[in-house]
């Protein structure tokens, strides 16, 4: 076993980590809104991500929509999925909601796997990123003017973190509004919020729909990053990596999500640079083993995460 640390000094390693970390930051912002600020256990976030990514790819490939329209529509379709799934399941509480949402996400995965004419089945879909490639080339030409032209992944990095920044600003802004305060009231005491005349169900539905939109954006970016989407890209593992990011950063802190994501993905990607004499499936196992250990360790020793506040935490027993 040797450890090759030179890779850690290369900018393209950090740009690669940054893209994945950014995608998971956007993904987990939705979880933060649901779990940290509304108190609803959304275990189906990867399903909304799949809906978004597949909707974008299908609209571009099968219906020949222009990419910006497809991305906007994919977000709207995922929100609609959030509303449909939420309308059916949000009256359930706690663990039951977790089971219902993960089942819904697995159902999305099942459709992606079995509706082959539309989704390509297990082979997946590719070739939806021509418009993005053109935009990336245009951005690279501009970056070349400032001496950054040889980092081919830099455009996606910039776009990903720009989207994260916008979403962060929006959610942080919403947090202080009456709307955001009602969400937190629901998290603290649902019955009290209802007694004040708030339509708890509608607020929860809005929270889930926004989370679904964020998952869809993350899914679109993931699709552009991996250039081929197939059902396993959106397995339940993705949701739980999102939860590891969420609790590492801390419940109740939107900015903490980015911290958790960058930390987790630096460790996960660095793990593949430790030259263990292992096959690819075993390296993947090491990475997911780390995710599991992070989840356990944070929940056992520091349930409020790195940046969370104890008073923001409602851990219903």
């Amino acid at each position: 076993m040797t450890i090759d640390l030179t890779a850690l000094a290369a900018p393209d390693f950090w740009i690669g980590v940054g893209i994945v970390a950014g995608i998971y930051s956007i993904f987990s912002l939705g979880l933060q809104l649901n779990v940290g600020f509304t108190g609803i256990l959304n275990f189906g976030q990867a399903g909304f991500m799949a809906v978004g990514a597949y909707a974008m790819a299908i609209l571009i490939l099968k219906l020949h929509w222009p990419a910006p329209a497809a991305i906007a529509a994919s977000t709207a379709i995922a929100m609609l999925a959030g509303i449909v799934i939420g309308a059916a399941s949000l009256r359930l509480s706690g663990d039951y909601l977790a089971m219902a949402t993960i089942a819904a996400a697995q159902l999305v995965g099942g459709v992606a796997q079995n509706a082959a004419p539309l989704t390509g089945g297990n082979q997946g879909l590719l070739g939806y990123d021509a418009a993005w490639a053109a935009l990336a080339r245009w951005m690279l030409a501009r970056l070349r003017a400032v001496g950054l032209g040889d980092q081919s992944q830099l455009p996606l990095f910039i776009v990903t973190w720009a989207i994260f920044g916008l979403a962060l600003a929006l959610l942080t802004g919403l947090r202080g509004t009456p709307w955001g305060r009602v969400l937190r009231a629901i998290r603290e005491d649902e019955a009290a919020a209802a007694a004040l005349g708030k339509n708890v169900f509608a607020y929860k539905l809005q929270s889930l729909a926004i989370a679904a939109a964020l998952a869809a954006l993350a899914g679109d970016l993931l699709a552009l990053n991996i250039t081929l989407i197939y059902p396993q890209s959106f397995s339940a593992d993705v949701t739980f990596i999102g939860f590891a990011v969420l609790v590492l950063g801390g419940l109740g802190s939107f900015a903490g999500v980015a911290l958790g994501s960058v930390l987790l993905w630096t460790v996960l990607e660095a793990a593949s640079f430790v030259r263990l004499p292992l096959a690819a499936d075993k390296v993947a196992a090491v990475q997911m083993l780390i995710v599991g250990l992070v989840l356990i360790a944070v929940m056992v020793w520091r349930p409020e995460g790195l940046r969370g506040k104890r008073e923001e935490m409602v851990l219903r027993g």
Partner: protein
Amino acid sequence: MLNAARRGTPSPADTRAAAVRAARRWIAAALAVAVAALLASRGVETAAQATINGLVTGTYFALGAVGLSLVFGVLRLVNFAHGDMLTFGAYVALLLNAALGWPIVPATLGGVLATAALAAASELAIWRPMRARRAGGFQLLLITVGLAFVIRNGVQLVAGADPLQLRLDVTTAVALPGGLRIGTVELWVVVTGLGALLAVATLLRYGRLGKEMRALADNLSLAEVAGIDTGRVILATWLFAGALAGLAGVLSSAAAGILTPNFGFQLLLSLFAATILGGIGNAYGALAGGLLLGFAEEWSTMFVDARWKLAVGFVILILTLLVRPNGLLGRPALK
């Protein structure tokens, strides 16, 4: 019902409840007839064969669901690592059977014991200390998720992700009356599984441990006050749940003929569905729910492609949660 008996004359509310119960019985009977007719419409023999396959699937679903339900009943813990305990048991049996050359029976026992030990270890290392700290439900839930990742990927780290097989002769079959067939291995799966389920049901019903478990499930502090050693009963619950999960894992991989590190997690939602169908926390209900779900998934293959079999489990899980979250038997939750 008790109230009515005490008062002698039934109140209007009781009569209404009785009418609802009667209506429910009729609806259930009508549904059963409708399902039977629907199945028979595809040919009696096809239906019978699917039913036999359903019995095989239902047997290991029931084994898995009973353990899941026991843990929920006693600890109010939804264990997302339960599916991966099936994986663990199957891989231990595989290691003993295929790598070390043990015969299948001792290898199965080894898998069962190892999984029981794993479950007990999780109680001692994690669950007991977390209870002492009064950890919240969200914390506990995510720890089960983390544990699921650790078990599944620990297995994959050792055994790799490629599909593996137990050393079993899966080619022979037993002919049943009416031109039906069941694989020899599958027959053994059903016999072993149903035997184990019968033993567990008897033990839970008549054994001291079963009574203590039910007392804990009803009210933990009250059970403690009544002098039950709750720590010991909880440890026994984990041992039971682990052993049953290990057996379910070996039997399901024997019946499927193949195993990958993912298979337990893929079964987890079906086990949830079975548990909730039977009324979560009710071990007998989970047993019935497991068998019912096995039939439902296999019967579905008569109408839609077998690739949708797992999705049928997801749909049943969602529908049960939405329509009858307290299970088909429908006792309202205490909380």
